[in-house]
């Protein structure tokens, strides 16, 4: 399988996004907007609150069977035999699939860590061994338990120390290291930089594994009709993530594969690639001649559906007394899990602040545990954790305010690519954010004398992608009564993609939002869109929608101009007519215009324009946190959060705020509670449920959570002026909380998550000196 994470990383590391579209006629930026920028409810709100929206989990087809997967219960084992005879005769069981079944010998996980759909060499607790299709989900699960497997258990490794020591049990033939440490950023001469520094500090930081756990589990419903196949998949991308790799894997032509995901219950990066579950469901469906539904259980999503890899990061930084950064040197290592995945974290170290001398060296190793996948800004919250805590450490040493120190080191040039940003609102995020947060007053106030200590922290951050780019195609179709339907292959992950697409079309056409409907993410019906990830959908898709609406309008206005004898610039759409602004009695209905040209609809096909050459397009943000630390129990309460984010033009202020709230809350979980716990005795995962894997609840988030939207009026990035938000809304939040905890207790929590035990350990270490 292609490794989306690594492909994305490679794509993003290169200076520019590949440009395929031809240059198109220029469209001027909007002046004052009527709809864009307003806080509006979503266009699919009704479906979501009524329960009518059909998610993959809700698809029910006549004769449909239910599948379940048998997974290896050991951290490392060789399968010596699989006996399915008991399972096959159980009530309701229709088919059992193993690696020996026809068509099931499928390679997986790429060339670096070659494996199979059902690999007898099980490299982690959760590797797939067999699957069952039965009439009910209960029967499928019963049958899975009845499959007898002979295992030869192998010694396992679950951490850096055991994985990389000489003679360690090998997970892959090539060993447990993914290669020599890679230099991922190099600029100037760090030795020279440290020699110039007045203060040089070095610290080792650690961030734990975080698991996506979207509320809708991963899964598919697959139905064959002869050589044609329809797949309902809980996926972030119907084209790149499912249709194309599925066609390739199964040897089916792309036009015979239809993939649908109209409502989607969350992914956060874990649904960017073709799942084994999809292929297993397809094999079972073909074998039984019946549709098959295969949804993972909650335990399986925690075990075998991806995670954010951990990171051990040693960061050395040099600064002059006046606050000038002289050198940054990062060495990081992360565990990819049992199969190939990216673990890089260092990009912000070479990019966020002006620094002439930078060296980042990164490496990856394998352990007998679930494989990492892209997770909301892959590598960035971890890299931010070390960089932004180090920035506070430096500021303290040279006696500078953390906001001032960051402001002093800002840059308007992308140092990694050596080109200017189209816009950077980081300065405004820091200034406006600290003003609204009351930063100066809060930091100057005396700390409490009780055992509850109050602290205030901030962190800045950015995201490597967030520009979007071609290819994206949007179809904007007008009926003869003036109603409009947009078609796009793009997923709405819950970010509000459908809503902003409709708002952009309404703005361009000058019609009410209610007159627009959108249909999305069905490869048989909707045009190509990239997978929704990397905060690239909004800036990738909406310019294509604007282009489509603009072309549609140009066609209609051209006809009307000819018919009415007025210039096209004088025309506007009013209800179902095109009317002259200067003499409103001059008008034609859409129906008249369309009939005159022998059509019953007009369609504008919008393609995404290329991004500007020699420019970097990135979103930025600064997050602020206020915490209370109970020094007796070690509990941390986040009492206030503030997010100031700059992602270009704000299309919808409601969904913008929602995204910042959500991103920062996920950062709260990363900072305080979320981690993967592996048992040292068995290598098995201990916290396979929501009781023990703790995601933030309504009681963990502060009621006071302000959002500030900085609009840099970027007219250069694309014809809508927007950049991505989902990831930069998440990146600095955890670091801000860590810095606030330091402010409260005076000991630096370098290792995450910062649970009560860790706080108490830090405090007792401080007491001992």
């Amino acid at each position, binding site marked *: 399988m292609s490794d989306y994470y690594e492909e994305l990383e490679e794509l993003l590391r290169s200076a520019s996004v590949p440009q395929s579209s031809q240059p198109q006629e220029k469209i001027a930026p909007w002046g004052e907007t009527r709809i864009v920028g307003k806080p509006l409810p979503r266009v699919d709100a009704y479906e979501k*609150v009524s*329960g*009518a929206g059909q998610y993959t989990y809700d698809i029910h087809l006549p004769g449909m069977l239910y599948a379940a997967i048998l997974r290896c219960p050991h951290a490392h084992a060789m399968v010596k035999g699989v006996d399915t005879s008991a399972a096959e005769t159980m009530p309701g069981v229709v088919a059992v699939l193993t690696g020996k079944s026809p068509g099931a010998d499928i390679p997986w996980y790429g060339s670096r860590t070659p494996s199979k759909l059902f690999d007898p060499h099980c490299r982690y607790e959760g590797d797939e061994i067999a699957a069952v299709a039965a009439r009910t989900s209960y029967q499928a699960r019963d049958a899975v338990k*009845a499959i007898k497997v002979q295992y030869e258990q192998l010694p396992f490794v679950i951490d850096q120390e055991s994985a990389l020591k000489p003679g360690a049990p090998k997970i892959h033939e090539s060993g447990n290291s993914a290669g020599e440490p890679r230099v991922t950023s190099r600029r100037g001469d760090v030795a020279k930089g440290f020699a110039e520094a007045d203060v040089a500090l070095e610290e080792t930081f650690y961030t734990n594994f975080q698991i996506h*756990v979207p509320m809708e589990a991963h899964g598919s419903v697959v139905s064959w009709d002869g050589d044609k196949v329809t797949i309902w998949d809980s996926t972030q991308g119907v084209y790149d993530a499912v249709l194309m790799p599925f066609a390739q894997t199964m040897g089916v032509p792309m036009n015979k594969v239809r993939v649908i995901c109209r409502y989607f219950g969350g992914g956060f990066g874990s649904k960017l690639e073709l799942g084994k579950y999809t292929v297993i469901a397809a094999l079972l469906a073909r074998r039984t001649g019946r549709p098959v539904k295969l949804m993972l259980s909650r335990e399986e999503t925690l075990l075998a559906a991806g995670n954010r890899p951990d990171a051990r990061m040693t960061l050395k930084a040099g600064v002059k007394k006046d606050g000038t950064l002289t050198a940054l040197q990062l060495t990081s290592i992360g565990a990819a899990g049992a199969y190939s995945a990216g673990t890089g974290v260092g990009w912000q170290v070479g990019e966020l602040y002006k620094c002439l001398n930078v060296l980042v060296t990164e490496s990856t190793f394998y352990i007998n545990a679930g494989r990492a996948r892209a997770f909301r800004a892959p590598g960035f919250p971890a890299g931010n954790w070390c960089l932004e805590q180090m920035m506070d450490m430096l500021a303290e040493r040279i006696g500078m305010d953390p906001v001032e120190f960051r402001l002093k080191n800002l840059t308007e040039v992308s140092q990694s690519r050596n080109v200017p940003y189209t816009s950077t609102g980081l300065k405004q995020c820091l200034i406006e954010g600290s003003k609204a947060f009351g930063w100066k007053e809060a930091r100057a106030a005396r700390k409490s004398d009780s055992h509850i200590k109050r602290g205030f922290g901030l962190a800045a951050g950015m995201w490597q992608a967030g520009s979007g780019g071609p290819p994206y195609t949007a179809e904007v179709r007008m009926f003869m009564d003036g109603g409009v339907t947009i078609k796009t292959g793009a997923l709405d992950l819950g970010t509000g993609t459908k809503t902003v697409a409709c708002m952009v079309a309404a703005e361009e056409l000058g019609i009410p939002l209610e007159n627009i409907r959108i249909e999305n993410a069905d490869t048989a019906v909707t045009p190509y869109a990239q997978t929704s990830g990397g905060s690239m959908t909004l800036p990738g898709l909406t310019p294509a929608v604007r282009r489509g609406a603009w072309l549609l309008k140009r066609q209609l206005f051209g006809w009307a101009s000819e018919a009415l004898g007025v210039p096209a610039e004088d025309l506007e759409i009013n209800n179902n007519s095109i009317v002259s602004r200067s003499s409103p009695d001059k008008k034609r209905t859409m129906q008249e215009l369309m009939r005159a040209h022998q059509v019953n609809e007009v369609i504008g096909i919008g393609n995404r324009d290329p991004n500007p050459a020699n420019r970097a397009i990135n979103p930025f943000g600064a997050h602020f946190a206020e915490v209370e630390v109970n020094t007796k129990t070690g509990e941390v309460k986040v009492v206030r959060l503030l997010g100031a984010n700059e992602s270009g033009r704000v299309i919808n202020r409601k969904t913008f705020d929602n995204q910042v*709230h959500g991103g920062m809350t996920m950062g709260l979980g990363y900072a305080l509670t979320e981690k993967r716990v592996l048992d040292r005795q068995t290598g098995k995962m201990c916290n396979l*449920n929501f009781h023990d894997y703790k*995601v933030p609840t309504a009681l963990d988030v502060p009621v006071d959570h302000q959002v500030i939207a900085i609009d840099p009026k970027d007219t250069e990035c694309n014809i809508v002026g927007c950049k991505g938000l989902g990831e930069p809304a998440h990146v600095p939040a955890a670091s801000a909380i860590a810095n606030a905890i330091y402010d409260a207790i005076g000991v630096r929590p370098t290792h995450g998550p910062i649970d009560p035990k860790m706080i108490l350990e830090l405090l007792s270490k401080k007491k001992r000196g």
Partner: protein
Amino acid sequence: MPEDPEDKCCRSDHGISRRDFMSSVGVGAVAAVSIGNAPAAPAQEIEAVSNVLTVNLRINGSLRKITVEPRWTLLYVLREFLGLTGTKIGCERGECGACTVLIDGMARYACMTLAVEAQGHEITTIEGLMDGEKLGPVQQAFAEEDAFQCGFCTPGQIMAVEGLLRQNPNPTIDQVRIGISGNLCRCAAYQHIFKAAAKAAELRAKGGQA
């Protein structure tokens, strides 16, 4: 002494809070984790659990007669046999709240309620809050306040707020937070859910008119 907000918002007449309910079910589901490791069950045991019985369930005001296995959950029956897929599956072990329905007006996890247990009780699902195609006040408030992202946990959140407001029409924000604390939202739209709960209380007071 400050009033415990849970007293007002989450305690049923029988004295079981949702929190107690959650902690009481934590153990039962552990067995499900050992998938693939368990020995095959003897054939007669499998036969025994596939025994069926008939239950009468009162759902959204209408009586439904249905044949079930004793182990089938209310969640399973609602979704698979009655087509009420507004109630979502999130964890199937009483931890996430995606399957929240009202049982006799109380917010309950349908995944932790057996279909046979639900007999004799009034069950309301998200579909039951609608008046034809018209949204109920809590649904309306969620739509207006953008109180969701992906929307998968949303029916459960709405039922939790509905259950809360039926017991306490004017909850404080802390009572709202406790009222939905058994409903996870991984997108974390909590801030807007808090707003929606307040708005819903307002709409209900006005007789459900937006």
